[in-house]
């Protein structure tokens, strides 16, 4: 080897040594609370205002949650959360740009700053909340994992699935949950895990696997893509808790509050009977709670770093939670999902938003 090669190898070795020693030092996960200077994390609100739009991470096409039509317009309940944030920040719900992400890319895209908020039917788990440097800003859909089987197999319960071939998407809590379920019940199965949801659906439709598993809302959505949607049934068992919600980066409390309270505003609005049609006229209602929400009383908007009509903009341009639900995943849509546990707490569900006061 000539001299330059020796020198270059020495440089690479030194670099590896430096890198390695730092990693040895940091082998235990660093406690996130140690960071006292939050100024080092760029304030997302300022960056978003400078850009002029919210960069929203969404799925690659899940009907009802985030799906683009053939003109490129995105709709869905996750899309509505992002539009709500844009309405709160800019007063204009259309100031959003969408980045479709696979389940493998989604957290890296958020952590690296490529997107401002991830609204992609993402399950809130402890690992994701603590180990990835991210925070979940709330739950916009309480879901659970279920199974879809062809009706002609005659299976009535998930406990009859010993020996099944199961298709799922890779890199999600789905794989872990289905493995746990089969282990608990002493059953065997073969897992076929694809990267893209469309490939999973195509493989299930072709008969490669007998069972398709994902969140029940996903099952309802993907069933619409099958060749013969009515020839399949969702089994009654729900094998996990899947609270789906928007995610933001750790270390930026102001942006976290904005996303959280956007969702809360939409839920509170449904509770108080404020819809996109009557929001403007309800601003002068006698009810003080409504006045506080819509900004006629108090300075709640300013405390978020936004204008006082932040919630009024959200509700008049995007709608309340119920409107969003009915329009995209409700019983009158192809997904046909009833409110179930996603109804308001006062109507038998568990949707309960903290009050604006």
């Amino acid at each position: 080897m000539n001299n330059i090669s020796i020198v270059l190898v020495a440089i690479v070795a030194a670099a590896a040594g430096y890198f390695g020693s730092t990693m040895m030092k940091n082998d235990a996960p660093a406690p996130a609370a140690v960071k006292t200077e939050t100024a080092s994390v760029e304030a997302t609100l300022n960056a978003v205002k400078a850009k002029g739009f919210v960069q929203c991470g969404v799925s690659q096409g899940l009907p009802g949650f985030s799906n683009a039509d053939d003109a490129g317009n995105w709709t869905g309940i996750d899309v509505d959360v992002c539009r709500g944030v844009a309405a709160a920040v800019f007063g204009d719900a259309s100031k959003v740009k969408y980045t479709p992400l696979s389940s493998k890319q989604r957290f890296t895209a958020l952590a690296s700053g490529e997107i401002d908020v991830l609204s992609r039917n993402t399950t809130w788990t402890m690992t994701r909340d603590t180990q990835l440097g991210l925070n979940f800003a709330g739950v916009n859909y309480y879901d659970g994992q279920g199974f879809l089987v062809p009706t002609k197999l005659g299976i009535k319960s998930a406990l009859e699935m010993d020996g099944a071939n199961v298709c799922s998407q890779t890199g999600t809590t789905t794989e872990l949950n289905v493995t746990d379920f089969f282990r608990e019940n002493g059953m065997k199965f073969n897992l076929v895990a694809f990267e893209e949801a469309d490939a999973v659906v195509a493989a299930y439709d072709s008969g490669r696997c007998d069972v398709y598993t994902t969140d029940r809302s996903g099952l309802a959505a993907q069933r619409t893509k099958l060749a013969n949607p009515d020839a399949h049934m969702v089994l009654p068992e729900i094998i996990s808790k899947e609270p789906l919600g928007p995610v933001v980066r750790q270390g930026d409390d102001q942006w976290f509050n904005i996303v959280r309270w956007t969702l809360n505003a939409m839920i509170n609005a449904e509770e108080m009977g404020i819809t996109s049609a009557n929001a403007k006229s309800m601003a002068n209602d006698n009810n003080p709670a409504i006045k506080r929400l819509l900004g006629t009383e108090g300075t709640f908007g300013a405390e978020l770093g936004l204008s006082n009509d932040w919630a009024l903009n959200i509700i008049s341009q995007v709608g309340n939670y119920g409107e969003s639900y009915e329009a995209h995943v409700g019983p009158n849509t192809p997904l046909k999902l009833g409110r179930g546990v996603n109804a308001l707490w006062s109507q038998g569900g568990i949707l309960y938003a903290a009050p604006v006061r």
Partner: protein
Amino acid sequence: MSALINDARFRNIGFQVLIIGALVFSVWWLMDNTLTNLENRGKSLGFGFLVQTAGFEISDTLGTWLFDYEVGVSSYTDIYFIGITNTLLIAVLGIVFASIIGFTVGIMRLSNNFVLKYFATVYVEVIRNVPLLLQLFFWYFAVLGILPGARSQMEVLGGLGGLNITGLYLPAPVFQAGFGLVFFAFIASLILSYGIAKFSKKKQDETGLGLKVAVIVPVLIISITGITYVLMGGPLDWTFPEFKNTGPVFKRGFQSDSGMVLVPEMIAVLLALTLYTAGFIAEIVRAGILAVSKGQTEAAYSVGLRPGITLRLIVIPQAMRIIIPPLTSQYLNLTKNSSLAVAIAYPELVSVFAGTALNQVGKEIEMIFMVMSTYLVISLITSFFMNWFNARVKIVER
């Protein structure tokens, strides 16, 4: 000072020092930046995750069989090795089959037979111009589309094996005590055959008459291995795939613990990769053969050699030194292209380690670094071997 700059030696060394300094600085800056950003986002670096147990299931493949994969017991290190095994399986089989098909198609394209030439041309042009991912999806869903369902079968090997949409089921060998000796006998017979081939060539160079190697070698290998096998009492058992037609729905079809299964994902990946790379290899082979001067072929014909022998003994040895360097690139491409298998659920290294495991663990930089280094090592070994082979087949010109 100007005297220094005018001195060529000083300039040379000075520039080298400057460039090395810039290189060191940029590497240091990149790493420092990365570490600072990671700290700010609350993430840490470390390889401690490798001993944690994994909580997800992996498809039945060579890797899971070799490493006895069990959920909740195997660690991420096992998953790493399972991924490498599956990648290497695809890479080795792919390289072998792609070379065979590529050489055949390349020579076909040069033949005088119109049908062969036309077929080879169409094959090469279509295969080279369609993206590999699309070809992969095509073969996967085409294969899935024509196979019988999970609860029926198409018999193979006269009923010993079967084929359906969940895989190709074949009898699996079960090695018993004493098989090691049979294996050694096989290796010994190979070495002996190699020795005999060399001896025969030497004898042919000296006297013009060699031994009939094509007959002696197979007879030798089979007899030595066979005799050892019989002497050891036949230490090889077979388990056959079991097919059930009755019982609960999911228990029907092929039973999972019987025989050996080749999942359709692996078959599709192999098909797509082999055909794709063979298209490129065909063109490389054709280029190599065309590069041998026509005078060689004419001289061979004038001496009375038939076209087949001319091709085998005169043209191809000279073409090899042109074929081998680009061929190395195609082998490396095949190895790296196997990472596309994640799109159709084949659990090779990228799919299972830099995909599923990465999503569960979250340590992107460490895991991607591991995967990149692995591919680098595999590629370096392949090109090292190919360069050695190239040096061996180089023609020494006078």
